[in-house]
């Protein structure tokens, strides 16, 4: 189990990226949602031993990550949000190297493992090509492959689906789902569906703080019966905005759908079926973040 306790991090430029973050993550898929700059990557890097917090602690199965980074790294699979490749190197060579680094000593075992991953990430045909020539999505899949090398007990993937086409995204979902139940997987994303589809638990982060955490379904239920919608001409939106607090607006076929939260429906509004996105918007709005995109 991963325990994060009162973690704080302020960068040298004064940005407070983590603000008293506490979180407990059990095995299973954990989704981390949050706007740009929320501190998701900072949090994940800290867990992945790539930086240290100013205060607070991260422990994984009782191992203090800051004190014994080496111990954690042995059980870690990590996909950074942004990464590059060695110029003129093939995925085969690179994955083999990562496997050695991760302690996979047996040569045949390593070969098998790397080949499996190449197939699973659909990179088999390009396994000997220079990675310099890879497209963004191919590179991303290579990143996923390396994160899964070994028997990671903690997998941290930072926006793993960014840049993947729908097929590959699905392939990734399946791959991730197959990892095993006793593995802690933390995944950050901006795509709410990813979380909805995959995660058993989730948290929403903004401005360095955890705003909300729980099971997606349970969070959605909390909005049940409190969310209302109306579809109006775009010109009328400003009028509504003057009268009440709008949660979201969305264009639908030339008109605009407006959603609001309230215990009673405003005049002309009909009940809406909440989804995770609504939860996300509602949480951010409650935290004072601007979510009105018009």
């Amino acid at each position, binding site marked *: 189990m991963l325990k994060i306790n009162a973690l704080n991090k302020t960068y040298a430029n004064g940005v407070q990226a983590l603000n008293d973050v506490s979180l407990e993550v059990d095995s299973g898929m954990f989704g981390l949602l949050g706007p740009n700059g929320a501190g998701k990557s900072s949090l994940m890097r800290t867990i992945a031993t790539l*930086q240290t917090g100013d205060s607070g602690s991260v422990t994984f199965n009782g191992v203090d990550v800051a004190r014994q980074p080496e111990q954690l790294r042995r059980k870690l699979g990590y996909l950074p949000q942004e990464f590059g490749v060695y110029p003129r190197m093939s995925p085969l060579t690179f994955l083999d190297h990562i496997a050695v680094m991760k302690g996979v000593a047996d040569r045949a*075992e390593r070969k098998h493992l790397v080949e*499996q991953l190449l197939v699973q990430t659909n990179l088999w045909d390009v396994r000997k090509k220079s990675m310099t020539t890879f497209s963004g999505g191919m590179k991303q899949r290579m990143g996923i492959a390396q994160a899964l090398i070994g028997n990671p007990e903690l997998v941290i993937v930072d926006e793993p689906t960014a840049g993947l086409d729908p097929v590959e995204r699905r392939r990734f979902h399946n791959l991730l789902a197959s990892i095993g139940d006793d593995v802690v997987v933390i995944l950050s994303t901006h795509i709410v569906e990813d979380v909805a589809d995959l995660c058993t638990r989730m948290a929403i982060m903004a401005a360095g703080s955890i705003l909300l955490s729980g099971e997606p379904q349970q969070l959605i239920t909390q909005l049940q019966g409190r969310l209302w919608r109306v579809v109006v001409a775009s010109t009328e939106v400003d009028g509504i905005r003057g009268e009440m607090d709008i949660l979201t607006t969305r264009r639908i076929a030339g008109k605009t759908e407006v959603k609001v939260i309230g215990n009673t429906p405003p005049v002309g509004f009909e009940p809406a079926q909440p989804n995770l996105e609504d939860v996300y918007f509602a949480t951010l709005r409650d935290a004072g973040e601007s979510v009105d995109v018009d």
Partner: protein
Amino acid sequence: MLDVFKFECRYQLRSPLFLVLSVAFFLFAFMLMGSESVTLGGVSRSLNLNAAWTIVYTQFFFSIIGMFGAVAIVSQAITRDYEFNTAEIFFTTGVSPRGFLLGRFFGGFVFAVGVCVAAMLGTLLASLAPWLDPERVGAFSIAPYLYALAVVTVPNIFFSSALFFTLAALTRSMLAAFIGAVAFIVLNIIIGNLVDPEQVDLLAMIDPFGQSAFSDVSRYWTVFERNIELVPVSGNLLINRVAWMSLGVLALLFTIWRYRFSLDPSVLRRKSKRARKTTPKPALTARSVEQVFNAVTPWRQLFSQVSIDLSGIYRSVPFYAILGFALLNVWGGFEGVGRFVGTPLLPVTSGLLRAIGGSYTFFILLIVIYYAGEIVHRERQAKVAEVLDATPFPNVVMVASKVFTLWFMVACLLLLAMVAGIIYQAVQGYTHFEIPLYLQSLLFVQGGSFFMLCVLAVFIQVLAGNKYIGMVAMLAVFFVLQVLPSLDFQHGLYLFSTPPVPHSDMNGFGHFWQPLIAFTAYWSAFCLVLAILAHLLFQRGVTDRLKQRIALVPVRFTSLTGLMLTFAVVAFAGIGSWIFYNTNVLNTYITTDELEVQQAEYEKTYKVRELDLRPEMLSVDSTVDLYPDERRLESKGTAELVNTHDVEISEVMVSTHPFITVNTLAISGAQRVEHREISGTHIFRFDQPLVPGGGAEMSWDMTWDHEGFANVNELAVSGGSSTRVVANGTFVNNSEIMPSLGYNRGAEIGDPATRREYDLPPIQRLPELGDPQTLNLSQFTVARRTEFRTRFSTSADQIAVAPGYLVGDVIERDGRRIYTYEMDAPIWPFFSFLSARYEVASDAHNGIAIEVYHHPAHTFNIEPMIRGTKKALDYFSREFSPYQYRQFRILEFPRYASFAQAFPNTIPFSEAIGFVADLTDPHALDPVFYVTAHELAHQWWAHQVVGAAQQGMTVIVETLAQYSALMVMEQEYGEDKMRRFLRYELDSYLNARGGELIEELPLVRVENQPYIHYRKGSLVMYALQDVIGEDQVNLALRRFIEKYAYVNGPFPTAADLVAEFRRVAGPEHQALITDLFEKITLYDFSVADADVEKIDDEWQISFSVDASKFYADGAGEETDAPLNLTVDVAVFPKPQDTLEDYQLPAPLVFERQTLVSGENQLVLRVNELPHRVGVDPYNKLIDRNPENNLRLLDLP
């Protein structure tokens, strides 16, 4: 474009690169000018510190090294966008490619010039510094600075910026630009080496920096001219500047034409067209993998990481480019390896190794500095760091991998040098390949410090956290290490390098192994500390700041780290203490400054005794026991002293060599009243003053041994003494192992500026010509020859040789060999003692035994030595006087020094010069023959006749030996080769004048100045015999010998010699003799224009000759003098192809015509097709511009 320019300027202003370079250049320039101990090679210490010439020359230097700064700045300006992936943003902003390029270029260029201007400011400010020696500071003038900016800095930086900007823009790679720059420099050196040095115009053109053109004009400038004059911007210099600037413009135009905004660096891309073999996808089978973490894991990780890092190197094109240039670089070094009067030396491995050390060091250094940055930051730059850093490897794996990768590069370069060396030897037909020697030297002896440097470079890069800062920091560290010794910080305990180890075929690496191993172990321990620190401070994850990384140290510090660190520190400290014990306790650590202090003190204390009358040594009986393996020598003996003066002597000063331990030193009837160990000075006072004719006995017992090893500056501060007593090839002389009488003028500081520092009066190198007080003292600083006998023993496998003849049998006992040598007539007290495992080649000539003692492998040039000896013996005994000995011996000694020296019947001759010269080219001058003849001539000019110890004395010894050798050479090799030799002499003389430290003197007053007594001496004597005849000169010399051979004083002076020449010369030549010997005379002849007319069957050549004559003063300031002299004029046909370029064909007509100052109209007629006309075509006179004496004719 202006916007881009402004943007670029703002960027550069804030860029650390510009700032760091400017500060570095400023400081460097400031030091060069402001500190007398740091000077640029090629700048004479006799010039004013702020001499106009020096200011310009310094800017040449800065603009050449500044080229690399310029490359960095401008190529960064153009490649930055790719490196930081901001290119996309830029290309869509609507700037035109041209505007973008020019804006970026000029933005970078201005700052590249700025860096050099920083250097200029450094020079300028330092030249105003109050602490400078006022004697060496001329009046301030801004002109040289402006001149340097306009003629040197701006053109050089412009073309180099433009050229490499182009390269960087088109390849999108900074590395390519750097390699281009290195290649450019190397190519330049190589081309410069390949072009015949006589092709002055061509050389001036192809030197991109214009330095050649600049030097051509100022080459023969004297101190006076260099202080105030600037080379006019015309002729070659102007053309060169314009040409290279234009090339820069062309490069820019080309870039504008070819450059496209695109992200595809297509220029260097290779397309791999491997057949697409489709391997079937393996089926998905679940199989669990085992992760093993044990003691072997880091090694596995290291192995994998090293192969990844190496593949990054050997898969890159630049690496092969570097290897290629390295190859050219060493090859160039081999080509330039020790030429001796133009003749190549055999490519013996020692010589090639030396050349590799010389030409390669800087190259490897640059590679290490650059690649350390590339390799250490490779993961970050490629952005794989975040992936890798989260995998479970200890930091040390990455650190070690980076170090190994650099080592691999360095080893490749070093082994490449070996391969190149072997190929070079094979090509030259030299097949004695010493591969173990190559490996030892390259990978350990010479190469060891490179490997250590790699660790330092990696450490600094880790610490710096940014590759550019790291590179600059590493350069700075290296610079400091280079400068420290000249600031008198000379101890090997902090200089981060292994001691220099000379290799000699005779003595191998000799006793240098011990300090080499000690210092290597010491610095290796230090490197281990660095590596551990690098491990602790390694940049992992997002820990950019050093402070953050330091905070991580406690986490990273494990007990194993602690153990290793303790071990490394203890080893470092332990070996360091042992080194300290050796260098500072067993031996004395002394710096060059301290040495000067001692010299100054010696002079201040004892100079007063210089002219004290002293007894003469009439006989010496000595015992010298040499233990080569222990490097120990015991010297005992007695000398009979007699007061040869007509006054009483009450005190006598005795000098012993500072390095020798004096066990006992006594003079009968005298007490030692003063003793200074540091200078080896002993003052004895006679109980009863020594009456005229009275005698005493001096006896000594001294030990010269070497305990442990001395500091790395030993070779420099010992003046060569540390390599005298060695395991094989010992060569010592009496001044080192026996006491000598009187003050030693040779121990004085010669450099005027240094003398002022120590408040010493201006040096008087020698007493005035004709000084009556020294007429009775010979050049050997004694007045009497000595009877000499020595019992000289050595180990059983060596032969020991001293002057004199072997008496009785060689006694062999107790693993020793004992030789007794005795001379049958008194000789000058100038004795050599040599011992080595020699092989002896013997011959005889007219009853004179000739023996060459040589290293068994060095059999190449024994024959020419013997032949030279015979020829010279014939000529000298016929023309001068009989040879006074019945034996002549040449002995080889190790290449720790490269000279030959003439002792009575004994000539020690360095391994580096005669024994390994390559005499296979029949056109080359034969240095073996020349040196042999010269040294043999000293048996006459030194051992038969020697001058009084005053001005001009070396004319009698050295100039006459040069003349004697010249005449034998001319007889053997013909006039053509002589001319070539004389041309070398002329060139050396004219070149050396500008480096004169005190004052140039006329030949007759020469004060032991080699460029005058050898170089000018040859020219003067050759001209003299050309005009008055060889017979007449030899007649004069015979008379001179008759008069002065074996006298006991008064000794002759150079004036006496000139008097003999005047006696045989006839009245018409008296003025010439005055000009040759008694004045500093320079001529300038040139054929101004020439017309050819065909008259009947004949060709008539009318030409005008510009002629002038100057007298120069001691500083080189010239005044016109009226010329009236008969000079050679000649017309030459077109040379046959078979002639070497230095040879002139036989003239069609050759006359001597009287020329006067100014224009002379001359007419010559020939009956064959003429080709060239010349005045003094063979350069017999000292011509300031020897090149323009010949002129090609335009035929009608």
